[in-house]
């Protein structure tokens, strides 16, 4: 018998079931379920972790021990848009620290903080695999390559003014990006609705606007 969390949206309950069914052992579902629970609770809250524990039949502290190991499970509330500025070596060499400074100035918050209205969180991150398109920025893990400080400032203004329901990498790349690591090919119509990787099974991927 598979446990369900009855107050989750029917869609997310279905996803949890699919995730649990895709592994030979239940415990493997902890990481994907933490993403789904982060959608339900807006972040990996204590409740979210407890519910994941119920689903995979381990203790809440075991889930917390996993969640706390990784950087992408946010155990504090996070804004609608998580702006991650890569400050790894290749981005650093191409001026990433200035990009981070521009993002901090435009939002009025420092790395690790969220704007007062809860719309934008800023973080600096280690290498995100976009070194050929340095400096790189992600919004809700959707990528923009070749970002200048000016473009970074414009990106923040755009997020705050237009409040896009779905953030699309190709759209942001067109508006705020430059040099790319490689030819991205045709535009991807899926994007992110929350600071959770936009992958179907976690439920944050959505057809573009």
């Amino acid at each position, binding site marked *: 018998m598979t446990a369900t969390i009855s107050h989750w949206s029917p869609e997310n309950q279905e996803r949890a079931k699919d995730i649990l069914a895709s592994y*030979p052992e239940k415990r493997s579902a902890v*990481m*994907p379920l933490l993403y789904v629970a982060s959608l339900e609770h807006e972040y990996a809250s204590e409740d979210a972790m407890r519910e994941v524990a119920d689903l995979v039949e381990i203790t809440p502290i075991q889930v917390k021990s*996993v969640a706390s190991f990784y950087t992408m499970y946010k155990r504090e509330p996070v804004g609608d848009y998580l702006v991650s500025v890569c400050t790894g070596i290749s981005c650093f060499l191409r001026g990433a620290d200035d990009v981070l400074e521009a993002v901090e100035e435009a939002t009025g918050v420092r790395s690790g903080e969220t704007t007062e209205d809860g719309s934008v969180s800023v973080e600096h*991150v280690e*290498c995100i695999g976009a*070194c*050929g398109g340095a400096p790189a920025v992600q919004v809700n893990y959707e990528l923009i390559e070749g970002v200048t400080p000016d473009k970074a400032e414009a990106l923040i203004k755009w997020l705050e003014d237009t409040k896009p329901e779905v953030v699309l990498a190709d759209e942001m790349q067109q508006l705020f990006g430059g040099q790319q690591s490689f*030819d991205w*090919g045709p535009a991807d119509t899926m994007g992110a609705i929350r600071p959770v990787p936009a992958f179907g099974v976690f439920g944050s991927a959505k057809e573009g606007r």
Partner: protein
Amino acid sequence: MTDKILTARMDAHPLDSHTLDRYLNTGGYEALRKAIREMTAEQITEEVKASNMRGRGGAGFPMGVKWGFLAPAEPRYLVVNCDESEPGTFNDRQLAERDPHQLLEGMIIASYALGVNHAFVYIRGEYPKVARRMQSAIDEARAAGYLGKSVIGSEFSLDVTVHMGGGAYICGEETALLNSLEGRRGEPRLKPPFPAVEGLYAKPTIVNNVESIANVPWITTNGGAAYAAIGPERSSGTKMVSISGHINKPGNYEIVLGMTWREFIYDIAGGIPDGKELKAWIPGGASAPWFVPSEHLDTLFTIDDVASNGSMLGAGAVIVMDETTNVVAAAHRLVRFFAHESCGQCTPCREGTSWLEAVLKRILDGNGQPSDVDLLLEISNGISPGLAWPPAMTTICPLGPSAVSPITSITRWFMPELEAMIAGSEVAVG
């Protein structure tokens, strides 16, 4: 001879190289037909062995030999490592995003050869588009009968699951990856037992890198000997190399190894922007000791030549620094990465990387002490005694020793600059 194996399709068909239709009308899944209808599992493994392909993930261990270690117990698993997180690498991202069926076909053939019925792709959490593309490819392949209960009508069945990481570099280490896939903290395991004997769920498991597996369809079609014939002995085949930093044409290049570094940096990647001088480069990702133009421009770009010159090709990531680079700041940035990504299990790494970061930081902040050079070397020696390359290990995995590479690099090649910075004099960069 074909000079492009992995990127030929995406180059020729940039608009739809990721779709099943395009894959099929450019010869896709023919290798799988050949494998299942004309070859035994053992024959496929023999071809992979004959290719001499050395694993593309960083360690450079021959893939066929690794396959040969797989223990007979069942079930067995194949896990493809797409946790590409070594600073400077972005080649797996391109391969998986632009030609996911090529990777998937390689996985299906490998699974058939290894007797695997459930394979996993572990994709780093920061690569959602890769996960979407892989899942689309999996869904297309299943609908078309290349995956599922009876692969192309045979007795062989295979499921493939996409698993996304949570943002932890260390999960690229294969045993940490397996712990992560089991729903645990991504802490590396002591070896032995090796994953081929006790891997995922303590069952025999092969963990291979994306680029390694993406070569399997070509090897199946053309034979291991044809692959081995490409490029220098012991660095056979093509290699996807990522180049970034101060370079005119950053990007991924699928090359045959064996050229000089001068040719690669200047002829292939366009040289240094704005006519500046090359100061140093990292030949194989953040973990690798640096090369400098006075010594290494005419060194050959092969796995063994890089190794015999005291560094490594790793996952194939070249990071270029021009004359304006503050090498202490660059070293600090690299060490900060390792300090952040240390899993904390082993004391030399957990403590050592943080102390290295702190000492470099105070030098950068203008508070360097005359004893700091010795201190940096002493801490480094505590992590990796002897400061040699390949490094002596005091830790379960190579992350700690990797953090030592920037230290040995700046003390070996840029000591006057480091000392000047500590002395607080105006740093003469360049």
